């Protein structure tokens, strides 16, 4: 397979994780010329999974296109998955339909159970379950991909809106004597995450699709960014923080410069704390909503309702809190009486809001446009294609007419591997001497005779033997 390869598989130790705390050992991939496959059965696998051989097994298996392990016990299935998990730092998925697949499903990162012929055991211990094996394609390429994109967008946006919100308060600290005076109104701070920006994000996370499901199946390469963890990693997080820093600087210093020593158009005050707070919070909300609008790629009616509804809710709640009625009822809770009426009718307030909004949003639009033009990703290309071309026709399904009323059954030609399983000794002790496994040299299948097996046990247990 790989003539120039080293004798021993190379394993290197490294640290991964958020703060590089987790120690891992990773086996490197090796180049191989040609396409190979590996078929190994349970008895051989029992040897191959021993401590001194399993890295070699993994190395060989990774050089193959496909590996088939047949006649394996449930524990061995789990051990193969565990081996890949530990030494390849890869995300593993296990799919099975029977009770013997349960351990493998539990060990893998993602366990998929098929409900059907073999019963519900696999389903009960799995993360996802469906009725037919072929639905796995949709699970991965459509739903898994959408879910990854939605999560990453959600995380990026959530960090952005909260960092921006908090950093504006930080800049204000330099101008309020570091006394921890908030630049926003108290009610706004309470409602920001719960009311004003809750529903739009929810809408984006529930409904967003960058590419149609049929196009997702037609172009499986779209799945690659999820495997490479491209949409939300340390670099993306740092980008998000820098974007928030920039936005917060704009969101504080533009209103600051515009309200510095200024008055209203009838000479009265506009640079007071309450009007400044109102201006700052309106600018922030409009910028944050527009950023969400740029992030949402799939605008259903629900999204429209959530976004525009939240904006209307903000203005109505703010107007209500600055109204006479609320002030008379709860005097100390609503001291911002009259602020909206006196500041939001000023042209220079709205000009400031408009300037802030554009200064925050235009760089984002420009950056995204430049990246689409210079380095379009496969997503961008497919999205452009979606606009111009027709949907691809789904592949015709081959109908199978198999109906069965039985739930499950098992039978065995030969003795089975109960002893293999119950020996409990294999892979835990190094056996220096082993008894030969097969008493006959020819394969029993041809001769239609039962095979004689010996367990992989110490010689002391040879005496137990078993009858054919």
């Amino acid at each position, binding site marked *: 397979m790989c003539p120039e390869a080293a004798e021993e598989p190379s394993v290197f130790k490294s640290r991964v994780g958020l703060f590089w705390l987790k120690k891992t050992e990773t086996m490197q991939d090796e180049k191989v010329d040609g396409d190979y496959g590996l078929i190994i059965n349970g008895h051989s696998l029992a040897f191959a999974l021993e401590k001194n051989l399993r890295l070699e097994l993994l190395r060989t298996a990774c050089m193959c296109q496909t590996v088939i392990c047949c006649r394996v016990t449930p524990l061995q299935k789990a051990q193969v998955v565990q081996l890949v998990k530990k030494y390849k730092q890869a995300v593993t998925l296990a799919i099975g339909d029977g*009770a013997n697949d349960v351990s493998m499903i539990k060990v893998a990162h993602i366990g998929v159970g098929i409900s059907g012929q073999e*019963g519900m*055991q696999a389903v009960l211990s799995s993360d996802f379950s469906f*009725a037919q094996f072929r639905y796995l394609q949709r699970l991965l390429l459509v739903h898994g991909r959408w879910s990854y994109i939605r999560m990453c967008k959600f995380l990026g946006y959530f960090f952005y809106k909260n960092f921006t919100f908090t950093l504006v308060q930080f800049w204000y600290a330099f*101008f*309020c*004597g570091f*006394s921890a*005076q908030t630049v926003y109104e108290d009610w706004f701070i309470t409602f920001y995450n719960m009311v004003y920006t809750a529903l739009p994000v929810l809408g984006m996370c529930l*409904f967003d*699709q960058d590419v149609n499901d049929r196009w997702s199946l037609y172009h499986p*390469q779209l799945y690659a960014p999820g495997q490479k963890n491209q949409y939300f990693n340390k670099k993306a997080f740092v980008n998000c923080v820098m974007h928030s820093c920039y936005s917060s600087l704009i969101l504080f210093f*533009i209103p600051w*410069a*515009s*309200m*510095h*020593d*200024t008055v209203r158009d009838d*000479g*009265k*005050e506009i*640079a*007071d*704390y*309450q009007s400044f707070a109102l201006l700052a919070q309106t600018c922030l909300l409009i910028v944050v909503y527009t950023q969400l609008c740029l992030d949402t*790629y799939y*605008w259903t*009616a*629900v*999204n429209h309702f959530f976004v525009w509804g939240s904006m209307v809710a903000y203005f109505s709640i703010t107007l209500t809190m600055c109204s*006479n009625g609320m002030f008379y009822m709860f*005097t*100390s809770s609503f001291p911002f*009486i*009259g602020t909206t*009426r*006196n500041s939001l009718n000023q*042209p*220079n307030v709205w*000009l*400031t809001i408009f*300037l802030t909004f*554009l*200064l925050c949003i235009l760089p984002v639009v420009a950056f*995204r*446009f430049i990246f689409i*033009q210079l*380095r379009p990703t*496969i997503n*961008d*290309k*497919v*999205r*452009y*294609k979606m606009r111009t071309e027709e949907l691809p026709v789904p592949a015709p399904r081959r109908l199978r007419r198999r109906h069965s009323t*039985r*739930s*499950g*059954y098992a039978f065995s030609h030969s003795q089975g591997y109960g002893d293999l399983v119950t020996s409990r000794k294999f892979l835990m002790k190094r056996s220096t001497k082993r008894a030969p496994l097969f008493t006959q040299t020819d394969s029993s299948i041809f001769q239609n005779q039962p095979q004689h097996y010996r367990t992989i046990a110490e010689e002391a247990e040879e005496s137990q033997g078993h009858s054919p």
Partner: protein
Amino acid sequence: MMASSYSAKDEDGHITVSGPGGGTLRNKKPENTAFKQQRLPAWQPILTAGTVLPAFFIIGLIFIPIGIGLYVTSNNIKEFEIDYTGDDTSSPCYNCAKNFSWNNTKSCTCTIPFQLDQPYESNVFMYYGLSNFYQNHRRYVKSRDDSQLNGNIDSLKKPSKECEPYASIDNKPIAPCGAIANSMFNDTLTLFYNDPNGTSVPIPLTSTGIAWWTDKHVKFRNPVGTNSNLTAVFQGTVKPVNWHRPVYELDTDPENNGFINEDFIVWMRTAALPTFRKLYRIIQKKNTMAPTLPRGNYTLVVDYNYPVRSFEGRKRMILSTISWMGGKNPFLGIAYITVGSVCFFLGVVLLVIHHKYGNRNNSANISN
């Protein structure tokens, strides 16, 4: 353990349960609606050159005239500022500032002559400005009792705890309580015009109409007592520590006395930044022929009562005209012009990039 139920699944996930009551069809498939199958009709916008480039150009073309308009408007506003802190020996108010003490019964007066090079048309607004005065400090901002200021009798007799330590003296409540009221600006500024004959003409200053309408009529109310005499209503309260006169003697006009005194209201509207200006008086335009403030020599007479030197603050008097965008502030104009030009330039750059590299988005490049 195998599942022991006799439920069979066919192709489509329909489960047939055969029981004593006959066969029933239990469908475990999710509904095939557009909502549940994520097929809702949607608008899917993408950033194409056809939307982004015109947007940049249009924004650039709109912003530049707006910026020019703002800048020209701001330049046409006339403003004159005098710093009368008195920290410099050459300043007329130096002696007042140096000799300031809290026990002064007689107020110190200083006179500052100045000159206006241009006549001021229309209404002229007179402001006092303070610097390095942190009206936005957290403990300061919450040191007030809005119920008391709204005329609530209970709060008048028992101010809220937020006003501590300026809530009461010798068990008598302070009206108005709090640090904001206590530090009210109490310099008196008057203007005189020295006409060519040499006589000093006092300029009439209007002291009402300087606070927000909602403040004067909704937020601040005098407490109502059995008789309309304010002195009687405020019986049992004391004035704030730093005030020279009690709150019911702020003005002889009963509409401007007590809590609804407009100077008091203007001061209580705390500023957002440490350098601020507050409206003090308005010089109304008398008749259409003469300018409100003609060109010439003027005198500012200051009753120096407000100490700022201890915290290195500064005091100033500002005379300013007003336009539709407020006072003189060239920032917005310059910002709009800058952003408009940068936008336009960026539009050109993006156009060039799109022209040269735009065909990378061609669908033929998708390797399948």
